[in-house]
Each structure stands twice: as structure tokens, then as C-alpha cells.
């Protein structure tokens, strides 16, 4: 029998106030005139501005009808002749909906409605003597976890009941009093405020409510109640609050998440539109909006709204923030991608508004690489804002809110990690919570408090602005100032020498699964990052101007680095869109790169690593493609014809132990290695599990695609060895051993390659993956005594501690790395080099490469299906830097390019040639160099070059490039 909790007590006074507050809200509209001739046409959006209509014509839409269809867009229209009784009044358009609707009247966008707001002002935008042509476009893509609005949550879904559309008039006296009560009841219910003041509020709000007569059909006593609130409640200044809070209006807009990128075009339109209308009504209202990419879509598809936006930008009300083209993931993208985010973002803002921004605004990204401060600083960005570390860390409280962030190279930017979430609705309790959580009260100036709904956009509401206008009437509230994002940063952080320095990555102690989820996206993103590099270089060499084509491809890649795309936290159609984009990008780059007879080494150092070169007549097979393993030995930025050498001698014996020129190996049947004796260095490398595939149950809860929990090792999933490791073939360079492992649903083939002329041991994995909530890792416990793992960042390396002494190390059990990681002691170590994996588990003396996950939210079939990927185990003497691990890993990831043109520019050997491109203005060649070893030095050139910032502006000229550890230098030729 169901248990029903029955509360047997009389109503409390504050509950009586609440009840009457509900009654009061029913009187907000003084009149409602229903639009009864609405018509609707259902459609499905198929591209940014194309719709597949389900019918040729519109059908009537009446109150009580179902509207919206799965993945649907609804077009709603009506021609309305205003009745005389409405003329001369201030009119509003009201439509209560759980969907999201943009409203146009007589060709002008007048506003939007969604679960967070239900009306817009009509009068200023119409001629009341004209017929009003209403055109609405609605879509039904609310985010799934709206915290504020349980009413809309209960009716969330693809089919909605139409509740009618009305032209209304508002009883402003009631509305004002409702906002007063909203504000004061929030304080009365919050434990964060003084208990005596809350008792005072509860008593006086009841007294105010007692002045209203609800018993008649028309409400009375509202003015008296309002007067009482003003003269008794607002007038009270006995209770003093403290604090200094900057209120910054913002709406977080996920370019894709529970919706596709094509839908973000309209979500952005609605968001911008709503904010513009608030600016019309409230001249003091300022709003910050990120992502130049979404400004571009507005400019392209809704130019009339974009023109309005530009006017508001010029007036200082609408504030473009965030230098990056989208809000990207800041773990997985390479340094050059992050630079391009800034370059294309800043150029876009400059073109649109004649100015750049000096901040990076990334409220929702899942941690931030240590390479970021330098990239920001050299892209004209002095300030960094991101909320996640303060509000989402699962282990440690991030110790600063306003601080300086020092990057891997020593560059510093000012940083703000606001104490609370980036989505708030500007309630006193939220502001008080922010102030109380703020840790830099003494030296940081104001605390940053963002308000506005977000994720799916929408932003601020009338109510939020009205709340703000009342805060200074309340002595119990912190001092509040509504300012722009840039104003906040410059006022509080600029030249503030008291700020503490955080020197290290901004690791997020959550969402550790996003280094691994949707592994295909990560692998292809890596491949395309290098292919774009090759396309730019080849274009330069051939003196072809492909800037426009490459920029388009780059921007598409950058969009897909958005923090809910590349990390894998999205619905299935978003994955399909990304893969389609990747195919388009790759096809275009292949066209640009073309072909040639010779192989060109795009790296500015000699390729000495054994490399697989595809060849239809080759004697080896890798990724199902024939080719040869050979040492290209092609000098820096040079071309050569390649020919494989046919080594005929015996170089490997496979008995109980496998003997190669480098190793004596004892394999286990599952492909793991029981012993790896190094003949050259005379030492054993294996201490425990080594190249051991492990499958773990991976049940992180609601943040399924995002998280791996610290206890993921609690339950291991067994697998069978359906085909024990066996010798499978050999040519003059490479010997293969194959085994196949099985679970009930999946099959995992491991091809292990040993080489005649390489210390590397490659593992190719061909997986038919059909698991649910399983994390696959390759674990390595080398016989190495060390307390640190070096992890590639794509532009230098970071050291991470392996021990679990403190909660800070404990929390970093899973980290992001790029092409390689390494555990070394003095004299030698073991590196793991990958071709598209980013998650690395760190646990005492072991490291584990995260290979695949199998999550079901948001995408029910995330990562299901076939996967092929390789990694290389590379034991080495010396330290990883002197052993050239970074160079080997780069060769492993950067293929030779068939191109006969010649490189005529300097080689800049000693630094990594990260990019070479035509400048954005077409006047020079831009070379990006990065120091990746942690050393300093100089390069003497035979000519003077320009030293540029990352926005390609000249800073000085020199013929000697002096570089510091991990410095990224941009040169103009």
C-alpha cells in the first residue's frame, strides 16, 4: 500500500502568506483577450535555416490542442485586428509554454517566450490601427534539468498542450507588489540571512498581505499593501548586511548539447532578442554574451536583430565577451586550436564591432590546461573567467575566486572563478550565498555573481532586473552593483597586487570521463588538427592562397571543440553532426594538400623513428592498410622518395620468450607482458600489470558521459581469452603477435608489434564494443621508482604526482594528457605514446591509458560499435626529454605528406614548428614556434623577422629569437 505522509497541524503564518502570494499573482493581468484565429504548421529543422514541413498549409490551433512534435519546429501565425477596448492601452503579448518561441509582429521581432517567461511588451512595436500579423517560430528543446521551474519540468516533452495566446494588460500595482513579495519571501525562507530579520519579514509580510482583500472578484488593498512594504519593510535598516557583489547579466548558451548545432541558431536568436527587449525597457540593464560564432549566425540569418544588437553594443548595454570563437573544451584541443579560437574570435569581434575583448569567458568548461595563460595573454586577453572549479569540484575547495593564474611558461593572466554557479535568477539568497562563499574578500575586491538562465540560452528576465532595482532598499543585503563583465574585471583585478597566484593547471575535480567519452571524436580531432597544419604548410610552399578554405575548415573544427561536443556530453544526433563535419573538413583538406611523388617531412627535425608508410605493395598491414615500416630519415622540412629496405636476415626468435635486438619478452596469453628485459640497457621494465587490458564497471550516476568516479576500480569485469596471443607474422622490420579477448558482448583484438629497428612496442586495438557502463583501460606498472608522471600538453609537458598523500593528489586520479605520458627514474623510464587518447589514470607506481567508455546519457549508444586505435610502449634510457619522447610521439601522430614543393623558409630548429600560415591580412607568412622541452636558448637567423603576438600584430623585429621554457613564439616573415 502506498504510504501517504499526512501532516496533521494547522497552517503556519508564513504558509498563509505563501498561499495568498499565489492568489496575488493571479491578478497580474488586468485583462486577457484571447487570439482565437491562430494557425499552426509543423516542421522539422534540417539545417540552420531549412525546414522540412509536414503539411502544405497551416491548420487551426485552439486552446487545449496538442502542439509540437518530436524534434519539431512549429510555425504559428495569426492576423489580429485589435478590438477598440484594447486601443490606447499598454498591451502585452502573453503565451505560457514549456517550449521556446520567437515572436515577430508585422515583420519585427518583438521578443521570446519559454519556460522562464511568458509575456512581452507589444505596444512600442505596433501601430494599433493596423492589422497585426503574428509570426511565431517555436521549438521544444528545453534543457532536461531546469532547477527553477518544476511546473515546466513536469510537462517537459515533445508534445505540449496549447494554453492559448493572449493580448493582455498588466495591473502594474499588483505586478510591483508581486516582485516585492518574491524578493522578500526569498530572504524570509533563506537560512543565509539573519534569523531575527527573517522573523521580522514573516511578521510584516503577513501584515502587508492582511491589507489586501481577496474575497471580492476584484482585488483591493494592493496600494495599501505596497505602501506598507515600502514604509515598514524597506524602511527598516536595523539589520545590516555586508559584502560587495558585482551583478553581471549572462546567459550560458551551449552550441550543442541536448540539441544540435543547427538549433543553436534559433536558441541564440531568442536569447539575444529577449535581452534586447529588456534593454529597451531598462536603460540601465547590461548583458554579457559570449561566442563570436553565435554572433555570426545571428548576423547571417537574422540581420535585422543583429543590427539592433550592434546598436546596443555601441550604447554599452550589450557586451560581447569571451575572445574565443566558441567556448571550447580546454583540455583536449591542441595549443594551436586554442590559439585559433582566440584569433578567429577576436577577428570576428573586431570586424563586427570595431573592437576586441580582453577576456576569456568560459563559465562551463571542464578544467583548463596549463598552456592557456600564455595563449590568452598573447591574444590580447588579460582576464580569464570560469566558474566550474568553485562550484563543481568533488574533493577540494578551489582556494581562490579572484586571483592571478600563472601558466606553464610563467605568463600570468588575471582570473576570476566566481564562487557560485553561472546560472542564477538574481535572488537575494543566491547573492548572499555568493558573498559568503567568496574567499578573497580581503584582497579581491568585489565578487562576481552571474545571473540569467542558461545552458539553452534565454538569459535574464524582467523579474531579475526588478529584483536588482530593489536590492539597495534592503539593509540586510550585500552592496550590489550591476556592471559589465569587463568593468568588473578591470575594476577589481587590474593592477591588484594583493591577488594570490595560482601556478598550475586549473584541474576540474569532476568530469574526468570527458577525456575519453566518444573516443572517435577525440581521435579524428587530433588527426585533423595535424592535417590542417599540413594543409597550411603545403599551401604556403605551393604559393597557393587557400586562406578562405582553410579558415572555413578550421572554424568548423573549432566549433566541434565546443565543451559539450568534443568532450562527448551530448545526444546522439550531435555526434552524427560532428562526424559529418569531420568528413567534410577532411575531404577539403585532402583536396588542398593534394599529392606528389615525394614524401615531405612537415616536422622541423629529421624523422628518425620507424614509421609505417602506406603502400599497396607493402609487406605489413596496419589499420587494415598495407604498407611498410621504414625509417624515413628525411631531414627537417625536406622531401625524399622512400623505399623500404628488404632485410632478409633473422632478427626475432619466438619461443617461450620472444627475443628481438632490443628485448627479451615474456608475453601472457592476453597480450599483457610478464617480463620485458631490455638488452641494451640491461634491465627489466615490468613490475606488475603491464599492457594489461582491464575492464571496470563505470557507473558515475547522472553525469554519465562526464564522470569517472574515484572508486571505479572497485569492480573489475572479467573477459575470456578467445584466441591466446600467438605469433602472426614477420617481415624485415616488424613482427606481429595477435590475441583476441571477449566478453559476453564485445570482442577485442590486440595486435602487438615488435620491431627490428625500434625500441617501441606498438599495440593495435580492433574492438567491437557493445558494453554498457564499462571503462576499458590498458594498465602499466613499470619497474621504475618515481613520484611523477610527465604528461604532454601539446605545447610542453606537465608533471603530475603519482602518490596519494593529500586530497589534491587523490582527486587527480584521472587526468588529461595529449600525445604521450612517461614515468621515469634517473637513467630510464617507460613512455606511452597514443594516436588519439587523452585520459590517463595515475595511481602510485602505475599509469593506465583510458581507452573506451560505454555511457548512456545523454547518448544512449555512446561509443558503441567498432573502434581501431594504436598506442606505443616506449621504454627508454635517460629522461624523457633527452630520450626524444616528444619528437617520437610527434612523428607517431604527424604523417608524411606527399608533396613535391620545397620549403624555402627558415627551419627554426630547436623549437617545434607548430604552424605556418598566411597571415589573416595576407601580407606576410606567419610561423608559430613552441618550445616543448623546458629549455631556453636562441636561434640566430640570417635575416630580420617580426615577432608577432598571436593576433598577428608586430611587437618587434629581430634576427635573434631568444626563447624561454615552454614559450610559444609567433614570427612574421
Amino acid at each position, binding site marked *: 500500500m502506498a504510504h501517504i505522509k499526512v501532516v496533521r497541524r494547522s497552517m503556519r503564518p508564513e504558509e498563509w502568506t505563501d498561499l495568498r502570494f499565489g492568489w496575488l499573482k493571479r491578478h497580474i493581468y488586468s485583462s486577457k483577450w484571447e487570439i482565437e484565429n491562430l494557425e499552426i504548421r509543423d516542421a522539422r529543422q534540417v539545417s540552420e535555416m531549412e525546414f522540412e514541413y509536414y503539411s502544405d498549409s497551416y491548420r487551426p490551433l485552439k486552446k487545449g490542442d496538442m502542439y509540437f512534435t*518530436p524534434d*519539431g519546429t512549429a510555425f504559428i501565425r495569426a492576423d489580429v485586428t485589435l478590438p477598440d477596448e484594447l486601443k490606447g492601452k499598454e498591451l502585452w503579448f502573453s503565451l505560457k509554454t514549456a517550449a521556446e518561441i520567437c515572436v515577430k509582429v508585422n515583420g519585427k521581432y518583438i521578443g521570446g517566450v519559454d519556460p522562464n517567461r511568458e509575456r512581452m511588451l507589444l505596444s512600442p512595436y505596433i501601430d494599433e490601427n493596423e492589422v497585426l500579423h503574428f509570426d511565431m517560430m517555436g521549438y521544444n528543446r528545453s534543457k532536461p534539468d531546469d532547477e527553477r521551474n518544476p511546473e515546466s519540468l513536469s510537462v517537459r516533452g*515533445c508534445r505540449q498542450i496549447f494554453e492559448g495566446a493572449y493580448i493582455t494588460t498588466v495591473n502594474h500595482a499588483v505586478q510591483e507588489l508581486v516582485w516585492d513579495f518574491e524578493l522578500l519571501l526569498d530572504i524570509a525562507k533563506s537560512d543565509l540571512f539573519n534569523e531575527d530579520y527573517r522573523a521580522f519579514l514573516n511578521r510584516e509580510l503577513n501584515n502587508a498581505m492582511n491589507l489586501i482583500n481577496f474575497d471580492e472578484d476584484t482585488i483591493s488593498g494592493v496600494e495599501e499593501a505596497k505602501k506598507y512594504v515600502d514604509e515598514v519593510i524597506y524602511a527598516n535598516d536595523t539589520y545590516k548586511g555586508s559584502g560587495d557583489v558585482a551583478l553581471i547579466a549572462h546567459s550560458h548558451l551551449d552550441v550543442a548539447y541536448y540539441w544540435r548545432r543547427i538549433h543553436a541558431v534559433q536558441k541564440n536568436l531568442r536569447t539575444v532578442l529577449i535581452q534586447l527587449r529588456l534593454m529597451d525597457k531598462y536603460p540601465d540593464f547590461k548583458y554579457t554574451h559570449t561566442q563570436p560564432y553565435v554572433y555570426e549566425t545571428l548576423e547571417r540569418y537574422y540581420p535585422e536583430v543583429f543590427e539592433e544588437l550592434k546598436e546596443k553594443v555601441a550604447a554599452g548595454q550589450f557586451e560581447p565577451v569571451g575572445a574565443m570563437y566558441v567556448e571550447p573544451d580546454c583540455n583536449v584541443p591542441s595549443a594551436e586550436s586554442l590559439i585559433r579560437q582566440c584569433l578567429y574570435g577576436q577577428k570576428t569581434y573586431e570586424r563586427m564591432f570595431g573592437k576586441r575583448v580582453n577576456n576569456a569567458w568560459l563559465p562551463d568548461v571542464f578544467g583548463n590546461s596549463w598552456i592557456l595563460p600564455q595563449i590568452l595573454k598573447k591574444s590580447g586577453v588579460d582576464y580569464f573567467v570560469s566558474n566550474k572549479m568553485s562550484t563543481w569540484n568533488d574533493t577540494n575547495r578551489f582556494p581562490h575566486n579572484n586571483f592571478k593564474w600563472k601558466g606553464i611558461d610563467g605568463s600570468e593572466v588575471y582570473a576570476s572563478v566566481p564562487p557560485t554557479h553561472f546560472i542564477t535568477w538574481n535572488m537575494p539568497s543566491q547573492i548572499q550565498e555568493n558573498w559568503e562563499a567568496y574567499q578573497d574578500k580581503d584582497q579581491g575586491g568585489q565578487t562576481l555573481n552571474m545571473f540569467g538562465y542558461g545552458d539553452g540560452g534565454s538569459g535574464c528576465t524582467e523579474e531579475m532586473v526588478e529584483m536588482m532595482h530593489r536590492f539597495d532598499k534592503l539593509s540586510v543585503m550585500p552592496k550590489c552593483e550591476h556592471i559589465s563583465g569587463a568593468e568588473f574585471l578591470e575594476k577589481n583585478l587590474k593592477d591588484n597586487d594583493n591577488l594570490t597566484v595560482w601556478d598550475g593547471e586549473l584541474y576540474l575535480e569532476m568530469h574526468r570521463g570527458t577525456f575519453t567519452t566518444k573516443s572517435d571524436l577525440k581521435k579524428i580531432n587530433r588527426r585533423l588538427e595535424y592535417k590542417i597544419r599540413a594543409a597550411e604548410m603545403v599551401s604556403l610552399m605551393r604559393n597557393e592562397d587557400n586562406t578562405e578554405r582553410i579558415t572555413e575548415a578550421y572554424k568548423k573544427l573549432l566549433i566541434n571543440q565546443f565543451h559539450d561536443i568534443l568532450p562527448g556530453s551530448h545526444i*546522439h544526433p550531435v555526434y552524427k553532426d560532428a562526424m559529418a563535419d569531420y568528413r567534410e573538413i577532411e575531404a577539403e583538406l585532402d583536396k588542398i594538400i593534394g599529392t606528389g611523388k615525394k614524401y615531405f617531412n612537415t616536422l622541423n627535425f629529421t624523422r628518425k623513428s620507424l614509421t609505417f608508410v602506406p603502400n599497396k605493395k607493402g609487406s605489413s598491414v596496419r589499420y587494415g592498410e598495407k604498407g611498410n615500416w621504414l625509417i624515413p630519415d628525411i631531414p627537417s622540412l625536406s622531401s625524399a622518395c622512400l623505399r623500404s629496405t628488404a632485410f632478409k636476415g633473422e632478427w626475432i626468435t619466438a619461443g617461450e620468450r620472444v627475443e628481438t635486438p632490443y628485448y627479451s619478452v615474456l608475453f601472457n596469453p592476453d597480450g599483457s607482458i610478464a617480463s620485458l628485459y631490455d638488452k641494451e640497457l640491461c634491465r627489466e621494465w615490468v613490475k606488475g600489470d603491464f599492457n594489461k587490458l582491464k575492464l571496470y564497471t563505470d557507473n558515475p550516476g*547522472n553525469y554519465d558521459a562526464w564522470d569517472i568516479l574515484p572508486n571505479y576500480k572497485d569492480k573489475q569485469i572479467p573477459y575470456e581469452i578467445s584466441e591466446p596471443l600467438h605469433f602472426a607474422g614477420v617481415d624485415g622490420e616488424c613482427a606481429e603477435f595477435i590475441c583476441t579477448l571477449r566478453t559476453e558482448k564485445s570482442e577485442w583484438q590486440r595486435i602487438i608489434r615488435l620491431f627490428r629497428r625500434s625500441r617501441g612496442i606498438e599495440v593495435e586495438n580492433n574492438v567491437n564494443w557493445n558494453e554498457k557502463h564499462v571503462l576499458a583501460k590498458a594498465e602499466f606498472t613499470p619497474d621504475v621508482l618515481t613520484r611523477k608522471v610527465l604528461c604532454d600538453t601539446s605545447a610542453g609537458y606537465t608533471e603530475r604526482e603519482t602518490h596519494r598523500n593529500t586530497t589534491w593528489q587523490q582527486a587527480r586520479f584521472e587526468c588529461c594528457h595529449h600525445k604521450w605520458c612517461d614515468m621515469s627514474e634517473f637513467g630510464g623510464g617507460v613512455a606511452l605514446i597514443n594516436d588519439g587518447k587523452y585520459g590517463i589514470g595515475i595511481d602510485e607506481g602505475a599509469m593506465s591509458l583510458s581507452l573506451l567508455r560505454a555511457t*548512456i*546519457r545523454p547518448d544512449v549508444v555512446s561509443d558503441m560499435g567498432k573502434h581501431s586505435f594504436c598506442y606505443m610502449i616506449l621504454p627508454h634510457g635517460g629522461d624523457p626529454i633527452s630520450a626524444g619522447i616528444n619528437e617520437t610521439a610527434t612523428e607517431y601522430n604527424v604523417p608524411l605528406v606527399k608533396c613535391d614543393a620545397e620549403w624555402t623558409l627558415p627551419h627554426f630548429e630547436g623549437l617545434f614548428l607548430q604552424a605556418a600560415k598566411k597571415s589573416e591580412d595576407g601580407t606576410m607568412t606567419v610561423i608559430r614556434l613552441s618550445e616543448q622541452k623546458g629549455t631556453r636558448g636562441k636561434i640566430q637567423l640570417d635575416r630580420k623577422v617580426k615577432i608577432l603576438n598571436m593576433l598577428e600584430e608586430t611587437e618587434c623585429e629581430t634576427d635573434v629569437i631568444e626563447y624561454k621554457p615552454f614559450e610559444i613564439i609567433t614570427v612574421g616573415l
Partner: protein
Amino acid sequence: MTVKSYVESILQPKLQGDGGWVEFVSLESEELTLIFRGECSKYLILHRCVAWIEEQIKADLKKTVKVNAIRKRPYFQDV
């Protein structure tokens, strides 16, 4: 077009667009059994979507079906 392929090729992409998921299980007489996963599995108003599916099949395939909807919620939302 069979009901199975209609569910898989016409309805499935639409439901996926809202973060939902539908799978064909069986069609016996007029009873069409479908599994709903993802966002569909926790919708309080799934019956509205189910009614729409029945209408669509009626309109497009001229077949009358009664959908037997099985919700497969993920364990972390099974409350």
C-alpha cells in the same frame, strides 16, 4: 514500409533529436511494443508522444496500432 522500419528510420531520428530513443520490439496483431530509452524513458507525459506515434502510423502506413510502451530508465534515473 513495415512498421519496424518506419519506427527505426522515420520515428527514431525525430525522437533522438529531443534526446529520446525508441526501439521496435514486436508487432503482434495491433499491439506494437516499443522500448523507450533516454529522455523518453523519464518523461512524465510519454503518453502524449505514444498517442502521436499511433497517429503517425495511422496516417503514414494506414495501420491501426496500440503502442505498448516499455520505459527503460537508466539506473541513475530509476527513482
